């Protein structure tokens, strides 16, 4: 990806704004800002599967949840400090992504969508039934240890915010490298035309599973942040509706870095801003989703690598 000077300025201003934000915001908005960062990371990881890989994954909260629960269980049941649990909370979701994607990856669009919804629902029931007595059942796990790092309380609102910034930047970095890598190009081709990609010798199945694994791992990392932010995990934070949210973030925003950030802003922060409208909020929000898709069917900031002819995108 070539960066125009404008784009460079854009990213610099954005990163500066992100860094300065805690100075401006009151605690409530700082908390929302942190969740915004976490959801952006999840949105980006969903983009690897849905946007870049072209696989209709509507169960992404599953991997987010596995990451959060891994960290929570490691801390709560086994007494491992949350920060040390991070590698596990990336590896386990990534493995789950690879194992679960294996048998369903050949499914066409909507069938894959339904299968991933299915995984999400099965996961939720496992957690709600307190499987192995470690998930805390319907309540979830409360009162996780607050991690400290070099003497800083990482669960303080400002610390969790900057932790979010760090993870978001890390994810940016991973995504930028992915775009340049062989895997990124392979994903690009196979999304354009699966059969053609296969016939020119791209191992489509392997790369699709890779995309699931990578996306799941990043989502797992974001899950740890959520667990730290709330000092708690709870089943309904990872239910199917949450997967719908991540799915919509990618599509409303568009499959690009600014797109995902915009998508997260529109799908998560705006409803928080209009919280006071309580009962009307989601009614209007639904209309906004329809309108957004009619006006910008490819998202607010669509992907811009290469021109994709229209006839590729249907079906």
């Amino acid at each position, binding site marked *: 990806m070539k960066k125009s000077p404008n784009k460079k300025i854009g990213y610099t201003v954005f990163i500066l704004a992100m860094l300065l934000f805690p100075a401006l915001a009151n605690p409530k908005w700082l908390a929302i800002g942190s969740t915004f960062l976490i959801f952006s990371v999840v949105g980006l990881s969903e983009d690897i599967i*849905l946007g870049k890989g072209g696989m*209709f994954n509507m169960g992404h909260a599953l991997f987010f949840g596995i990451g959060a629960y891994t960290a929570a269980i490691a801390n709560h049941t086994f007494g491992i400090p949350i920060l040390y649990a991070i590698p596990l909370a990336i590896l386990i979701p990534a493995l789950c992504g690879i194992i679960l994607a294996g*048998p*369903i990856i*050949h*499914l*066409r*669009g*909507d*069938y894959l*969508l*339904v*299968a991933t*919804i*299915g*995984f999400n*629902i*099965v996961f*939720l*029931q*496992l957690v709600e*039934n307190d499987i192995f007595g470690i998930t805390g059942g319907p309540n979830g796990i409360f009162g996780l240890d607050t991690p400290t790092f070099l003497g800083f309380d990482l669960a303080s609102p400002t610390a969790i915010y900057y932790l979010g910034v760090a993870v978001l930047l890390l994810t940016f970095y991973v995504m930028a490298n992915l775009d340049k890598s062989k895997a990124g190009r392979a994903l690009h081709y196979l999304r354009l035309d699966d059969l053609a990609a296969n016939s020119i010798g791209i191992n489509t199945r392997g790369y699709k599973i890779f995309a699931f694994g990578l996306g799941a791992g990043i989502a797992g990392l974001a899950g740890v942040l959520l667990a730290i932010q709330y000092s708690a995990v709870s089943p309904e934070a990872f239910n*199917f509706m949450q997967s*719908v949210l991540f*799915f*919509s973030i990618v*599509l*409303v925003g568009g499959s690009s870095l600014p797109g995902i950030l915009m998508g997260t802003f529109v799908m998560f922060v705006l409803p928080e801003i209009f919280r006071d409208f309580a*009962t*009307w909020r*989601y*009614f209007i*929000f*639904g*209309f*906004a*989703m*329809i309108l*957004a*898709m*009619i006006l910008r*069917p*490819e998202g607010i900031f669509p992907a811009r690598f290469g021109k994709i002819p*229209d006839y590729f*995108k*249907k*079906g």
Partner: protein
Amino acid sequence: MDIFFQQLVNGLTIGSIFALVALGYTMVYGIMKLINFAHGDLVAMSAFVGLSVYDQFLGGTTNSLVAVLTIFAATGVIIAMAGIILERVAYRPLRNAPRLSAVVSALGASLVIQNGIMLIWGPRMRFFPADILPATTWNIGGVYISFIQVVILVVSLLIMAGLIFFIDKTRVGAAIRATSIDHDASRLMGIDVNRIITLIFVIGTFLGAVGGLFIGLYYRGINFNMGWNYGLYAFVAAIIGGIGNIPGAMVGGMLLGIFKAFIAGYVSSTWADAFTFTLLIAILVVRPTGIMGERVAEKV
């Protein structure tokens, strides 16, 4: 053994409702390749509309065939109109957009309808009066079958038989099948594809409305957010039967109802959802196009 048959009756009753709702999904998918996520919410809405029709115009009328028919007719018309509006507003403008945009639009429409129900009828559970239909229950060798269960089964089967006849044996039915295979080729035959799509939404939402009213009459308590639940299960039923496949949706609905009843009855109610969705995934892995095969044209 009576327990077995009781579970069968339970399963067939809820299965009929799943089947009615699944037909709406499968028909819309067949024609537009779109998962109409708002369908379940229209089903929920029909229960509320039906209740309002009863309260406003028929208050106190009980056990009357006329009253019941009025509820079904009025609700059917209102919900079918809502279906037409849904298609015009949320789906038609996206007909040529990428597939996933329409999915998001459908999710948005679902939010609109669900919260619209809440704004109009409130967030509390509402109740169908118990005496719209006779509360008769028969005990056949230890198997309890209520009047409403018989009504649900018989009416559902009649409606589905009628639908199959319409689709398979009439000119318009053939046009519907043709449109679900190939829009452009259908246009070349002189078929007004927009009109067929509108017709599909009318039929699909009408069937959903019948399902929604059955939910209200059978379970009596209705909630603004109950549509998702029925929608999801009905959609699973449509997938099991092979999406786009009309008899498949019916069989899928019935099978899902019976499967859920037997799982809850013989295995574990605690794990019912996990079993259901594991079964769904297993079916997809083994037979990616559902057990009866999909009726959707391959991409050309």
